């Protein structure tokens, strides 16, 4: 291939956000290198649609490459909720790599990403509890607290835990927390820094393995993918899939460390969740996991096996690190 192809990526996050600066930009470099400079991806100055539209932007060819959150389009993606359940793991790298592996093994055949060329999947670091009011050491501390959440399983879990869920987009967090409309957020540590919340948040409670997670996709317009040469396609896939999950997961983990440092500097009091609280969360989450397994069954997927495989894979990866 001699002709140069330029692909347009639409990003709904600001250029300095870790996803853009530490995951997309390096990946774009890798694509360029792997294709010997024949595939060039540019990030548009502004998104071509709202965050939830980014799956359709790639499907309809409005943009060539996009990334997004499965949970932003409720009702569309069921199986990807496997990556949203509590206690998955302590590192985004392990979760994301394991996620791609079990996706290929169990979930891909259900074809939930029909209409796009799926390039990669990932999750952020373990989601935790942060608030401006009091240390959370039991479910009683959480009762009635107004928590901003981003949708997906965590929304139902928040309500089940006795808190009041305010479902608003992530960029609204600053407005909600700084004005006191919300008392807290469920976020990975990274987001406390990137949404500038450290000066308002006073308390953090860390749940081992994470309270929740968010499932992301990286996708491409299928016609644009088909138009590339076989060599170019292979080159792109060689730096996507599990390779991307590993690279992005490491970046998430670094961003979480930076978030932790930011909170320490701001004097946020961070504690580990006591055993009773973890037990309480597990009890509330169990029926939700059961409901997911039942729903997955209707799509011909053995959800129970998926979750077991997923957790075993994560444990294996975390142990090997």
């Amino acid at each position, binding site marked *: 291939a001699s002709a140069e192809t330029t692909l347009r990526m639409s990003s709904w996050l600001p250029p300095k956000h870790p996803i853009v600066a530490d995951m997309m930009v390096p990946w774009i470099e890798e694509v360029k290198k792997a294709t010997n400079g024949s595939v060039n991806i540019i990030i548009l100055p502004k998104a*071509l649609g709202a965050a939830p539209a980014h799956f359709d932007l790639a499907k*309809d060819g409005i943009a060539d490459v996009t990334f997004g959150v499965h949970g932003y389009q409720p009702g569309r993606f069921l199986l990807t909720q496997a990556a949203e359940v509590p206690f998955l793991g302590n590192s985004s790298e392990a979760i994301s790599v394991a996620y791609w592996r079990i996706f290929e093994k169990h979930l891909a055949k259900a074809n939930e990403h029909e209409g796009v060329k799926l390039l990669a999947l990932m999750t952020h670091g373990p989601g935790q509890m942060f608030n401006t009011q009091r240390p959370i050491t039991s479910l009683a501390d959480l009762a009635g607290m107004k928590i901003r959440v981003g949708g997906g399983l965590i929304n139902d879990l928040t309500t089940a835990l006795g808190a009041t869920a305010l479902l608003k987009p992530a960029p609204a967090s600053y407005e*909600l927390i700084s004005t006191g409309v919300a008392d807290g957020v469920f976020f990975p540590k990274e987001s406390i820094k990137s949404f500038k919340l450290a000066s308002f948040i006073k308390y953090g409670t860390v749940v081992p393995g994470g309270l929740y997670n968010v499932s992301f996709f990286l996708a491409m317009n299928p016609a644009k993918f088909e138009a590339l040469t076989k060599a170019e396609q292979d080159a792109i896939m060689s730096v996507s899939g599990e390779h991307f999950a590993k690279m992005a997961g490491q970046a998430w983990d670094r961003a979480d460390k930076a978030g932790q440092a930011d909170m320490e500097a701001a004097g946020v009091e961070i504690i580990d969740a006591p055993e009773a609280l973890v037990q309480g969360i597990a009890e509330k989450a169990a029926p939700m996991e059961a409901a997911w397994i039942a729903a997955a069954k209707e799509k011909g997927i053995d959800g129970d096996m998926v979750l077991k495989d997923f957790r075993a894979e994560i444990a294996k990866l975390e142990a090997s690190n």
Partner: protein
Amino acid sequence: MFDALIAFAALLALIALRLPIAFAMGLAGFVGFGVLIGWDASLAMVRNVTYETGLHYTLSIVPLFILMGNFVTRAGLSDELYTASNAFLGHRRGGLAMATVVACGGFSAICGSSLATAATMSKVAMPSMRRYGYSDSLAAGSIAAGGTLGILIPPSVILVLYGLMTESDIGKLFMAGILPGIVGVICYMGAVRYTVFRNPESGPPGDRLGWRDRLRALRGVWGVLVLFVLVMGGIYGGVFTPTEAAGVGASGAFLFALFRGTLTWASLRTILRESAETTAMIFSILIGALMFANFINVTGMPSDLTGWINEMELPAYAVIAMIVIVYLLLGCVLESLSMILLTVPVFYPLVLSLDFGTAFDPQSVLIWFGIVVVVVTEISLITPPVGLNVFVLKGVLPELSTRTIFRGVMPFWCADIVRLSLLVGVPAISLYLPGLMGR
């Protein structure tokens, strides 16, 4: 870059043909995107823009602030504002016009739109200025200019849209508009003084009221104060978000109109319906502008522009001056909402890339620039040949000639340029109040 310039030219031509602005922008955006990216993608683009703009939570602020303004007018709060400012200023030469400007400022504090402010105040202030023998040009000029304050003093629909486009804190933008709005009132009063100094016949003094009557008149203002404190206090005190403030403010204004007995079933229906129609009109423009903005986005014009400016290594304030001049020129022919929607996506990345030394942190630059943009937009509302506030006045008072109104507006336009220079040169006027927030 070149494609973008051709599209801008085509857009202006379509608008000059009297194609509604919303359709002109939509068409230019659709064709441009189709040529550059592909027709199927372009069809999908207009479909997606229409769908997601319709179902956009934060934009619910637009109909609710419009509704608030309509209830407030129905409740008679605009009359009380004018009576009160008249009691203090009316006996001076040009006093009724100054009172008009002050009442416009007050009304702006509870109404999110400049057009609504001008329309309302023209019904309230014009009759008494005529009774006292004011020249039509001064009377109309003070209303058309005073009305522009509606989008600067919070609440403001334009500041909300700017905040959404640049991901700036809307609460801070609202705070930032207050002092520049007061500066605007002072500058406009100066313009009235200048007009009556040049031509004393244009604004004869009215009756002087005693202090007892003045204080009585002042009591009528409490309704406006309550609503303003409700909206801004609620945002500042963490009771609700700026988006929710619109719904709370509209509810408050509704209760005012209800308890004052000014609402009937028929008037309630008219108010709701008119607000809904205005909403549909604004969203048509919004949807068209977003289609055009998507096309501009894929032309790469914003990044090209930023690249060029950075290459030329111009001082930051020279770039700001150039942007302001572009806005003043565009303001001659473009309608305010479309102007903001078209230009902000092009200019704000550029402004963010400028090096102001230690004068601002990045978030403050956008707050300050937002105020500058809103002020140049205010100016566009009274700049010929397409000055929407002038047209609004002409709609309410058809017997006035457009030329008379534009002549009366001239001194106010000059006062606006003075204010603009002040706001550009002294960012603290905009940034002092928001700086007190969120500490």
